[in-house]
């Protein structure tokens, strides 16, 4: 029942999207507003149709309608309701459906918000977005059709991928990722639309783009942090980042988007970097499509890669079209994107932003090269290789600490040129903060060179950031007699873009402290324990109480009960790392257990056990400040939210 409904909705959506894509530019060229409105109606209809398809799929999943091919592939009667619903994005077809729906939502929302804007920018941007939409609908009715019919109808299915149904974060991470990834299509469409409409030389479209970019950037940041957290909670090795191609695929567009959010300010203030910004906007979208291609085509092997199929060739064609069109449009319009302003002084905020962009570009390029090198090497030399983590770490650590440093320098410097004495008054004193933080870290046992440099720069830049908050609030406090808390809130409210950015910086500082501390001072031990045996690691001890098995509706669980004690012998917690055996896989899914406090995590994983339960081999990891990474992620997203508070036309001195 749901199969034909969903498939039908998608087929109609295909026609509607195609018609809209053709009608809108024709209407715009002939200045037929009435035709244009029909085209706009197609955009909203398309969203409705994809929503119908989504509802049909969720209904089919929840009612275990195994006649629908996707349900037969990922459904199972024993799977709990939450995981049944989220299995929507557990395999290729469903994830493309979610992707298409999110895109349709964005397209509709962009049109809704901007349809009264003067000029041809919006209709051309809509045309581009409908083009992208069309591609995904083609996938959904063709190679990634989730609504195929299965006959005879199976009684039950294998259930979703075990890794997916093992943790609630899988309900959060993929939708966030899609919101971030798909959203990057909007800035791209505006950039292409501005070039098609001949408005690219004006800066108005840039202000629109910045807000949409910020939305996607915030989602992507949240998704990356949630993905790190998931990997930490599920994969059982106590780490959160491994430079896997799939991780890199989500990281690269985030890097270029971050670069853009900074360089856009240079363009707004000084009229510089205009061509560069268009490149960043377009490049970010190309990187999202590239990332999707890499993970969906099976071209590069990864832990997370989806099953391959004909879909790779569709993506290849799409990437070719997007790349060629983007290059043609940007290069063809490059003469219109002349820089107006000039760099007045080497010591100015512009210079800091230039440095920032240089570093982000180098960072993106490093990740891209590391990700694609195995492919290049095999193509050119015929040698199968993989690029190890040391490459990424060695290349990215210097870039990251320099970025942390610039996060202090930038806010401390004024636009255009700094007054004499700025170095002495503004740049040198905060070094005290840096040295202080590094010294504290050293006394607490942090020894790694990179970790200490990170603390130094974080301390330095955080001091400057706090000083910015302090100076602003103090001024309000004096001038308006406001209380400190009110002064701080009103300060942020009066200039949400600027202070939202600083809040995001604080989030990055917290994440950086978490990474430097947890990576630099990690203790790890593995041992085979019999019940009663204990294992000591730093200031904590675990004792094995027993090994047990349990049957749950959708899986079998083998677990070990560990008692966690502090150095003084007081019981802190009981940890129960487990192995979950799912019927669809012959390998159990590790399920570590973590005792987390603000200061440290104790992470226990059940590595293996003797069949009769007489021993369990346990890996114990003690890492300081891991939870700071997740908290910092929250602060980062909060910063993005604050920045979004700023109305799009608040800071337009030359407002129309």
């Amino acid at each position, binding site marked *: 029942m749901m199969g034909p409904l969903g498939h039908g909705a998608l087929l109609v959506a295909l026609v509607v999207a195609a018609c809209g894509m053709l009608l809108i530019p024709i209407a715009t060229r002939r200045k037929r507003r009435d035709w244009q409105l029909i085209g706009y109606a197609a955009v909203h209809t398309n969203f409705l149709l994809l929503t119908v398809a989504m509802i049909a799929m969720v209904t089919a999943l929840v009612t275990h309608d195994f006649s629908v091919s996707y349900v037969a592939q990922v459904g199972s009667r024993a799977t709990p309701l939450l995981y049944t619903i989220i299995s929507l994005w557990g395999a290729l077809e469903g994830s493309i459906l979610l992707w298409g729906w999110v895109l349709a939502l964005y397209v509709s929302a962009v049109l809704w918000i901007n349809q009264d804007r003067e000029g041809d920018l919006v209709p051309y941007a809509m045309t581009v977005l409908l083009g992208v939409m069309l591609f995904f609908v083609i996938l959904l009715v063709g190679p990634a059709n989730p609504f195929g019919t299965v006959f005879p109808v199976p009684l039950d299915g294998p259930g979703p991928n075990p890794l997916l149904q093992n943790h609630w974060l899988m309900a959060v991470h993929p939708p966030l990722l899609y919101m971030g990834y798909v959203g990057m299509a909007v800035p791209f469409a505006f950039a292409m639309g501005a070039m098609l409409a001949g408005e690219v030389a004006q800066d108005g479209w840039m202000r629109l783009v910045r807000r949409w970019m910020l939305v996607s950037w915030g989602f992507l940041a949240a998704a990356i942090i949630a993905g790190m957290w998931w990997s930490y909670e599920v994969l059982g090795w106590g780490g959160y980042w491994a430079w896997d191609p799939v991780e890199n695929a989500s990281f690269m567009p985030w890097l270029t988007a971050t670069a853009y959010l900074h360089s856009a300010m240079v363009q707004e203030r000084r009229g510089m970097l205009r061509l560069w910004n268009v490149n960043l906007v377009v490049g970010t979208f190309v990187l999202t499509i590239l990332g999707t291609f890499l993970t969906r085509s099976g*071209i*590069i*092997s990864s832990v997370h890669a989806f099953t391959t199929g004909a879909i790779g060739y569709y993506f*290849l064609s799409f990437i070719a079209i997007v790349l060629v069109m983007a290059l*043609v449009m940007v*290069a*063809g*319009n490059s003469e219109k994107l002349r820089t107006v302003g000039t760099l007045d002084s080497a010591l100015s905020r512009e210079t800091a932003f230039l440095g920032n962009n240089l570093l982000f570009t180098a960072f993106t390029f490093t990740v891209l090269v590391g990700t694609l090198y*195995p492919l290049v090497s095999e193509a050119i030399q015929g040698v199968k290789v993989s690029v190890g983590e040391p490459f990424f770490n060695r290349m990215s650590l210097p870039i990251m600490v320099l970025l942390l440093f610039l996060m202090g320098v930038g806010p401390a410097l004024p636009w255009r040129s700094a007054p004499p004495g700025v170095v002495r008054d503004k740049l040198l004193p905060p070094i005290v903060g840096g040295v202080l933080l590094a010294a504290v870290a050293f006394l607490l046992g942090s020894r790694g060179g990179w970790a200490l440099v990170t603390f130094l720069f974080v301390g330095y830049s955080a001091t400057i950031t706090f000083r910015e908050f302090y100076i602003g609030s103090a001024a309000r406090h004096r001038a308006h007699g406001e209380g400190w808390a009110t002064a701080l809130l009103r300060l942020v409210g009066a200039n949400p873009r600027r202070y939202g950015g600083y809040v995001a910086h604080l989030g990055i500082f917290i994440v950086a402290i978490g990474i430097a501390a947890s990576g630099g001072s990690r203790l790890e031990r593995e041992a085979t324990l019999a019940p009663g045996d204990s294992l000591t690691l730093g200031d904590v001890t675990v004792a094995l109480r027993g090994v047990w098995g349990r049957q749950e509706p959708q899986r079998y669980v083998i677990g070990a009960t560990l008692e966690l004690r502090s150095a003084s012998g007081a019981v802190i917690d009981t940890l129960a790392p487990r192995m979950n055996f799912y019927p669809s896989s012959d390998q159990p899914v590790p399920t570590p257990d973590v005792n987390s406090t603000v200061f440290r995590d104790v992470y226990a994983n059940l590595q293996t056990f003797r069949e009769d339960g007489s021993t369990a081999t346990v890996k114990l990891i003690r890492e300081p400040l891991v939870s700071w990474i997740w908290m910092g992620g929250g602060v980062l997203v909060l910063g993005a939210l604050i920045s979004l508070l700023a109305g799009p036309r608040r800071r337009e001195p030359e407002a129309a």
Partner: protein
Amino acid sequence: MNWRRALVAALFAAPVIGLFAWGMTRDPKYIPSPLPGREGPTFALEVFAPGVPPIARPAGDTISLAAFRGQIVVVNFWASWCLACRDEHADLSATALRYAGQPVQFVGVLYMDQIEPALRWITEMGGQTYPSVNDPRSRAAIDYGLYGVPETFILDAQGRVAHKQTGPISAGLLTHLVDSLLVAAGASDTAASAPTAGTVSP
């Protein structure tokens, strides 16, 4: 629009697209096998699924690869739990029948599976024309360096591995490979034939 610049820029897309297009032609999970060009490991295993006449072998019979020397042998590893095996099954069955009466043998080898579900699978799939043997301790699979199922090995008349296929094989490819081996075998009763695919290790 400056079309000259646009054209030059578009050319930059070519190597990127070319690289990806090439990348699509190979499987990153594929691990090169040293077997092609070498003698295929022999095995003697018991038939559990007889197949259909004229190429059937009674269940309980032992199939020994060594006895097939001088003929082309297609060895297909499969399992009832393997989804990709379903895709190639009809092609294999039909191709095997087509070569009945010629010096070509098809053997299915069951990989990490039980006989009962395997027989049920064959019935479900509408039968298997060639005989299948069981490999209870995975000896044959290990000798052939198997990574998963399905994998198909084609042995030439001298018993050397001429081709290794990871993943499902199509009737077209199978026919092409077997035909060229048959031609080589016919043409070179004197000289040793070169394998049609794979690399010859020195």
